[in-house]
């Protein structure tokens, strides 16, 4: 029953996507990256990955730890540099772009927030506009707007420090910080991984709404297939540096790869087990 309602949502979204520009917002073409391992050997983190993300699309990249998904995300805004291949953002080769400028126009939500502990909530959120030289009064207005947007009531939070916030509040601030400079693209590195299930669910839904409202293009890294399916338009699966599969849940379900099938079976099995255990739950 759960899956049926999901399929319906995908169809709606696919239609929306079809109408939008055909030029990809982000494109990876044969991208490779390896790191120095122990001794002389090199560890391949990303291996010949090609992938396109359309404007307004919400893509989730799923994989186990060490699958290369975080590396792929970091390559996008040049937190690290690729060894092979080409990455374009808004049709511009990132290698030709100024890395600092590139990062300022791409929002980035870090694992567990990574808020600067010595700065207040307002200063954390306003950091990118401040770096861009936005006047203080405009930043203040923008901060209030963003606190409203991520559902943190203004007066209470802006002067607090990160250590005075709960995990969920910290991550809401993290999202607000990523959105502060009005980016068209947001990259998220396991943003909700460290949160309790209720907070995680609420935050996921809230972000999904923001994504649509602001017409963002979002790439989210997660190891949780359920989260990926619930939030994203399209899911990419990575394993050992390679892109195994990509597509809407429906497309993925037709994939022959054993690993992809196993990844998809797990949430479904869990849902069925829950349905059996909790009869009369409002899924109908």
């Amino acid at each position, binding site marked *: 029953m759960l899956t049926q309602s999901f399929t319906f949502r995908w169809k709606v979204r696919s239609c929306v996507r079809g109408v939008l520009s055909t030029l990809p917002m982000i494109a990876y073409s044969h991208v490779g990256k390896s790191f120095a391992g122990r001794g002389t050997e090199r560890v391949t983190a990303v291996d010949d990955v090609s992938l396109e993300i359309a404007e307004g699309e919400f893509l989730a990249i799923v994989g186990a730890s060490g699958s290369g998904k975080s590396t792929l995300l970091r390559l996008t*805004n040049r*937190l690290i540099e690729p060894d092979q291949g080409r990455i374009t953002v808004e049709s511009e080769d990132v290698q030709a772009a100024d890395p*600092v*400028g590139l*990062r*300022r126009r791409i929002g*980035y939500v*870090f*694992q*567990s927030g*990574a*808020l*600067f*502990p*010595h700065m207040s909530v307002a200063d954390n959120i306003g*950091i*990118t506009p401040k*770096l*861009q030289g936005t006047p203080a009064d405009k930043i203040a207005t923008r901060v209030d707007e963003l606190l409203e947007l991520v559902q943190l009531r203004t007066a209470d939070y802006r002067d607090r*420090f990160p250590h005075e916030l709960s995990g969920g509040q910290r991550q809401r601030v993290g999202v607000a*910080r990523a959105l502060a*400079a009005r980016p068209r693209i947001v990259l998220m590195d396991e943003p909700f991984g460290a949160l309790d299930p209720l907070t995680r669910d609420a935050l996921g839904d809230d972000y999904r709404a923001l994504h649509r409202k602001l017409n963002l293009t979002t790439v989210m890294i997660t190891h949780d297939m359920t989260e990926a399916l619930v939030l994203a338009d399209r899911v990419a699966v990575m394993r050992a540096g390679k892109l195994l599969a990509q597509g809407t849940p429906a497309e993925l379900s037709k994939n022959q790869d054993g690993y992809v099938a196993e990844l998809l079976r797990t949430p479904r099995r869990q849902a069925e087990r829950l349905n059996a255990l909790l009869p009369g739950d409002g899924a109908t």
Partner: protein
Amino acid sequence: MSFLTDPRWGEAFAHLADYLGNHVRVSVAALALGLLVSLPLAIAARQRPVLRTALLAVASVVQTVPGLALLALFYPLLLALASVTLAWFGFGFSAFGFLPAVLALALYSMLPVLRNTITGLNGVDGELIEAARGVGMTPRQSLFAVELPLALPVIMAGIRTSAVWVIGTATLSTPIGQTSLGNYIFAGLQTQNWVLVLFGCFAAAVLALAVDQLLALIENGLRARKRARTALGSFGIAALVVATLVPALARPASSYAIGAKTFTEQYVLAALMADRLRAAGLSASSRQGLGSSVIFNALAAGDIDVYVDYSGTLWLNQFHRTDTPPREKLIEELKAELEKQHITLLGELGFENAYALVMPKQRADELGIRSIADLASHAATLSIAGDYEFFSRPEWGALREAYGLPFKAQRQMQPDFMYAAVASGEVDVIAGYTSDGLIAKYDLSALDDPRHAIPPYDAIVLLAPKRAGDEKLKAALQPLLGRIDIATMREANLRASGNDAAASPEAVARWLWQRIENH
């Protein structure tokens, strides 16, 4: 008289503003310079392992050099540098006092700051540094907006350690001409005035603790992100600096600086000359506890205006002469030599303070020793003690050349302890000073020098080149020339070696002036 009502406390307090002010100024300047050098170096070195290792190694080596030696080394170094700049660029600078003290102390302060800055920066969470890049910071912005603020508590801890070290070590800058709380300690040690020594140590400790606590307040405020604490600590430090700067700016610079070497007689004579200058309506200050080689160069460079030296000392140490002409001829030649450097030999005070080999009268009689020649045959079974410089002075070489003197053992001692040591039999012979009052006090006898290995040591008043034509100064000092005989100086030195209020150099100087006037 009880310990607390001792008038020497009052005398010590009278100097406090001057000594403490100078101490804080030199410490703060050294610390500021140290930080200015260490912080950028540490920042540059944190991601360069080779540079980092080299820097920390150098700083550690500097740390192992004893503070006094490090301070003393900077004086000749700067003196040489000053002569180079004078020759090449046409300007010189004073290698005396403040500058060498600040440089040596700054070098001394570097290790804790370097180490803690590197540790602090490397300890910043890597995720936060990536976040800084991720939000669009340049490496520079990341350093100043994220890494340094986060490392600040650790860096502050290093600055605290540095501050305490610098304040403690600054007491050792007295011998290179920088007034500090060390003036109490050095003067007290020389004149056996333990009240002064205690006062100096206590004042330095209180200052170090106060600065440490203020910096701790700042560190604590930074750690707990309490702006009020940080502000309060910073305000305290600023207040301390301003408080020590204001009197220095308000007080007119004293016109005459009187130098004194590191022993009692010099303190007394400096006090005597200062009194004479003041009586003549001139203002005077003293720069006490200067090393033997520092003081002559300081005079030549005009850092001090006047001091008393001894003819033989200059003859051997400054002009490296090995011949020993009769005393009048020696003075004459010395005068000519000094004039080449535009230094005025104003005149002799009337007594001689020679190095002499001294032993208990009773012991000398038992062994049948009257002269150094007699001593030579007994030397192999005897031990000798001298002050810190004696055994490296040419006099010692001349004595050995003339008499042999293969002593069983050699020891170096604080001059004022030597007499008690030889009187108690701790050592057999000491290289004492003929004008020392303790020779009579302990019933010692100074041995004759039949081969004239040691030149005469007439006490002479020297004036700096810029004071050559200063008739007011000359007139003020004139009444002292030829008026202090050896018996008077011995008694003055004996009085000054006592351990009570009447033994302060100032009090003895007043007594000495009365003697001069009444004769």
